[in-house]
C-alpha cells in the first residue's frame, strides 16, 4: 500500500492524514484490511516499472510538449492527404464549445440534468437530417466503417439475407472494418462481401456488373457518393432502383460537406445512409477524430434495427416545454433479433456536439459556398497537375474533393515523389499504388484549405520533383 507524504492535485484524499481519518471512522486498522477479499497470493509480485511521476503541471506540460513538438503538422506543411481523415477548417467556436467541461465531462446524467447536451445531440441529428433529407439520424458510432458495418447488419436482419455488394474501389481501411463486422466465413451469421466492378472509364459502379450480381440473396448494395477515389456516382437513383427491384436495401455513404452542392441521398432512394462526422468540425487528430453516422427514413422497420442512441424531442410535465430523451431504447434488447446482436457503448458523441455547432455556423449558404469552393479548387488542382509532364489525373473533372493522380510516366514511384515533396514541406497524396491495378498512383485531397496559390505551389514543386 502506498506511502502518503504529499498531497496530489488530482486526489483530495491524498492530503496527509486524510486516509487515516477515514479508516478511523470505518473502524479499520489499515488500508490493507479493506483489501481482505483478495487472497494474498493474488497480489502482484513484479514491481510496477513506470516512468517517474510528473506531479507538477509544469513538468507534465514540458514532457507532453517536448514529445508532441517532434511531430510535423499540416499547418506547417502543405497537406494533400485525405482518405478517411480530411483537413478542413474548424471554426473557433466549435473548439470552444466542445472544450466546455460540462460537455467533456465523465458523467452521464439524466434527461433533465443534462438537458443541454441532449438538446445539442438532437440538433446534430436535426441539422444532418436536413442535409440528408432523412428523418432519422442516430448519434454517431465509432467511425464511418463501423457505421457501414452496422448498416449492413441492419440490412441482414431486415431482409434475412446474407450477402452485401460493395464497390470495387472501396477504401481498404473501411473495407477491413466491414469484413470484421460481417464475421469470418466459418460463422453461422457470416455475411458475404462481394465486390461490384468499377467502370474503368469513369471509376463509377459498373451497372451491368451490379445487375449481374444482384439477386434474391443480396441483403444490400453499398456505394459511396462521392466515392473513396473521389468519383461521383452520377446516376445514384439507378443503383437504388436496381437494388429495390430485387428486395435489397440501398446503403449509401456520403461526405456531409458535399451536401450543399450534391443531391441529398434522401432524394435518390437511399434506404440507410452513412458517412463520416470528422469533416463536420472535428480536427484530424491523427485519425482520432473519426466517427460515423447512420440515418434512414422514419419507418419503424428501420428504426427498430438501430444499434445505438436515437434522441427524440418530447414534452415535459411543464406546459409548452421541450426535453430530449432516447427513443426506441428497448430495441437494443440484445438477443431478441434473429440475426446477430449489435452492441453499443461509449462512442463519439462529443463529435455530435462539434457537428451541431459546425452545421449551425455554416447554415445553408455556408454549405453551398463550401461545396462550391471545394469543387472549384479541386478541379483547378486537377488541371494544374494534369499539365505536368508525366503526370496524369484519372477521371478528371468527375470528382469532388479527392482524385487519383498517376505518375507512371515520370518513371518515379509515388514513394520517391512523396519523399521529395516532404523534403519541400508538402505531404503528397496517399500512396495507393498497391491498392489499384493502375500503376503508381496517389490519392490527392484538395479542400477549402488550399488556396489557388497553394495549388500552384504544389504543381510547381511536383514539376520539379518529377523531372
Amino acid at each position: 500500500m502506498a506511502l502518503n507524504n504529499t498531497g496530489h492535485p488530482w486526489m483530495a484524499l491524498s492530503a496527509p492524514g486524510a486516509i487515516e481519518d477515514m479508516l478511523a471512522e470505518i473502524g479499520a486498522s489499515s488500508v490493507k484490511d479493506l483489501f481482505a477479499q483478495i487472497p494474498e497470493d493474488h497480489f502482484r509480485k513484479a514491481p510496477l516499472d513506470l516512468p517517474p511521476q510528473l506531479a507538477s503541471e509544469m513538468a507534465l506540460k514540458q514532457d507532453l510538449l517536448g514529445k508532441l513538438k517532434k511531430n510535423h503538422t499540416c499547418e506547417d506543411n502543405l497537406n494533400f492527404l485525405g482518405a478517411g481523415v480530411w483537413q478542413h477548417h474548424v471554426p473557433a467556436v466549435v473548439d470552444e464549445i466542445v472544450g466546455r467541461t460540462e460537455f467533456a465531462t465523465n458523467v452521464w446524467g439524466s434527461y433533465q440534468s443534462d438537458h443541454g447536451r441532449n438538446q445539442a445531440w438532437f440538433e446534430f441529428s436535426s441539422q444532418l437530417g436536413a442535409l440528408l433529407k432523412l428523418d432519422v439520424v442516430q448519434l454517431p458510432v465509432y467511425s464511418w466503417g463501423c457505421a457501414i458495418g452496422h448498416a449492413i447488419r441492419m440490412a441482414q436482419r431486415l431482409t434475412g439475407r446474407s450477402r452485401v455488394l460493395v464497390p470495387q474501389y472501396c477504401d481498404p481501411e473501411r473495407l477491413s472494418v466491414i469484413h470484421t463486422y460481417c464475421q469470418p466465413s466459418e460463422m453461422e451469421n457470416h455475411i458475404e462481401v462481394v465486390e461490384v466492378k468499377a467502370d474503368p472509364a469513369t471509376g463509377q459502379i459498373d451497372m451491368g456488373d451490379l445487375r449481374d450480381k444482384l439477386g434474391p440473396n443480396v441483403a444490400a448494395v453499398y456505394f459511396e457518393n462521392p466515392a473513396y477515389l473521389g468519383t461521383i456516382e452520377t446516376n445514384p437513383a439507378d443503383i437504388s432502383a436496381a437494388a429495390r427491384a430485387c428486395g435489397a436495401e440501398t446503403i449509401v455513404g456520403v461526405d456531409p460537406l458535399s451536401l450543399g452542392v450534391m443531391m441529398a441521398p434522401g432524394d435518390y432512394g437511399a434506404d440507410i445512409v452513412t458517412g463520416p462526422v470528422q469533416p463536420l468540425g472535428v480536427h484530424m487528430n491523427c485519425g482520432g477524430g473519426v466517427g460515423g453516422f447512420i440515418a434512414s427514413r422514419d419507418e419503424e422497420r428501420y428504426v427498430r434495427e438501430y444499434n445505438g442512441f436515437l434522441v427524440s424531442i418530447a414534452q415535459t410535465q411543464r406546459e409548452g416545454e421541450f426535453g430530449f430523451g432516447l427513443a426506441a431504447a428497448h430495441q437494443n434488447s440484445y438477443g431478441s433479433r434473429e440475426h446477430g446482436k449489435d452492441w453499443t457503448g461509449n462512442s463519439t458523441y462529443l463529435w455530435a456536439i462539434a457537428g451541431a455547432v459546425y452545421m449551425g455556423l455554416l447554415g445553408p449558404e455556408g454549405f453551398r459556398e463550401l461545396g462550391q469552393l471545394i469543387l472549384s479548387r479541386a478541379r483547378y488542382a486537377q488541371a494544374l497537375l494534369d499539365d505536368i509532364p508525366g503526370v496524369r489525373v484519372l477521371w478528371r473533372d468527375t470528382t469532388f474533393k479527392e482524385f487519383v493522380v498517376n505518375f507512371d510516366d515520370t518513371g518515379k514511384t509515388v514513394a520517391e515523389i512523396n519523399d521529395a515533396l516532404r523534403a519541400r514541406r508538402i505531404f503528397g497524396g496517399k500512396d495507393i499504388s498497391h491498392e489499384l491495378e493502375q500503376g503508381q498512383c496517389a490519392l490527392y485531397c484538395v479542400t477549402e484549405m488550399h488556396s489557388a496559390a497553394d495549388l500552384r505551389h504544389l504543381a510547381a514543386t511536383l514539376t520539379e520533383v518529377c523531372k
Partner: protein
Amino acid sequence: MRLGVVINPVAGLGGAVGLKGTDGRDIVTEALRRGAEPQSGLRARHAFEILARACPGVSVLAGPGQAGVDWLTGLDLDVQILPAQPLLGTGADTREMVAAMRGQIDLIVFAGGDGTARDVLAAAPGLPMLGIPCGVKMHSGVFALSPSTAGHLLADLLAAGAGRSSLSEVEIMDIDEAALRAGHIAPRLYGVASVPSRPRRMQAAKGQPGPRDDQAALALAAQEIVAGVSSDTLLIVGPGRSAGQVISALGHVPTLLGVDAVTPGALIAQDACAETLKALVAQTSETRIVLGVTGQQGFVLGRGNQQIHADVIRAAGGRGALEILATRTKLAALAQPCLWVDTGCAALDQSLSGYVRVRTGPGETQMMRIRAA
C-alpha cells in the same frame, strides 16, 4: 382509463394465525375463530389513497360493500358501484364481480393473494390486472411489492396516459394449500395474465441494452431447439409459456397448463397424461423433454408436471434429454440460484442433479445447478 376494484375481504386471514392460506370457507371460519383480523380492505385503501392524491377524480368501478366501495369512502375518486349482490365469502364472489365488470374497465385492481388472482383470471382471461398484495401466498407475478407501490404504480400509469403503457405477461401460480399444510411446497401454474409494467422513465445510460423482450428471445431459442432435432425426435413439452414456445415454433397452440408431445412433423398428443407419455417414449428412439421453470421456487420437474413421470425421464435419457427454457429475468428472480427437481424417485433426482444449460435466447444459455428437492 377506468379501473375495476375488487377486494377479497378475507384474503390473508390465514397467515396471521398460522394457517397456510385462506382458500375455502372452513379455513376462513377457523381463522376468524383464532382471532385473525381482516387486513385486505385497509391495505387496498392505502393504495387508493396514494392514487387519489396523485390523480384526483380517477374513474373507478368498485365491488359492493366490503368487497370494494366501503374501503374507498372519502377518497377523491369517481367511484361507481357494481350492482350489489350478496357476498358468499368465497372465491365465487370475486369471479362474479370481475365477470360483471368485463368490458367496462381497462384494468382490474384486486386485493388478495394467489387464490384471488386465480379467480380474477378465471373470470376475465386477458384483462390486465394488478394485485395489491394481501394474501398469505403470493407466488404469482401480478402483485405489486406493497400497497403503496401499487398506488404509485397506478398513479404513474394514469399519468403516463391511457393505452400506451406496456403490458408484460406473468404467470398465475398457486400452491395447493392442503399439501402446504402437510409440509410440501407444490406451486402450480394456473395461467398467464398481463400486468402493466412500471413505466421506465429515464435511464438508458452508457449504452446499456434496455429491458429486452424476454419471450421474443425465447421464441427464437425455441426455433433453435426445433432446428436442432431430427424429424423423428419426440418432444415432450410443458407446461408453461416458456416451454410452450417450442410448440408454437412448430405451428401449434401449446396446452399452457398441461404437457404436449410433438415431433417436428406432427402434433402427437395434447395435455397428455403419464401413461400416454410412457407409451410414446417407449416407441421412440430419441426423446427431448422441454421444460420451463416455476417462478421464484425454480422447479423444473415435479411441480405441475407430474405427468412427466420418472419412468418417462429415465427412458428419455435423464439429464441429457432435458431442454430448459426460461427468461433471464425469471432466473435472476429465483429465491435461490438453482433449479429443483422432485420426480418422486430419489435416485433419479440425484442423477438429474448438476449443471444444465438453460436457454434464455437465441445463441444464449445460462448455466444453472439442478438440485434434488
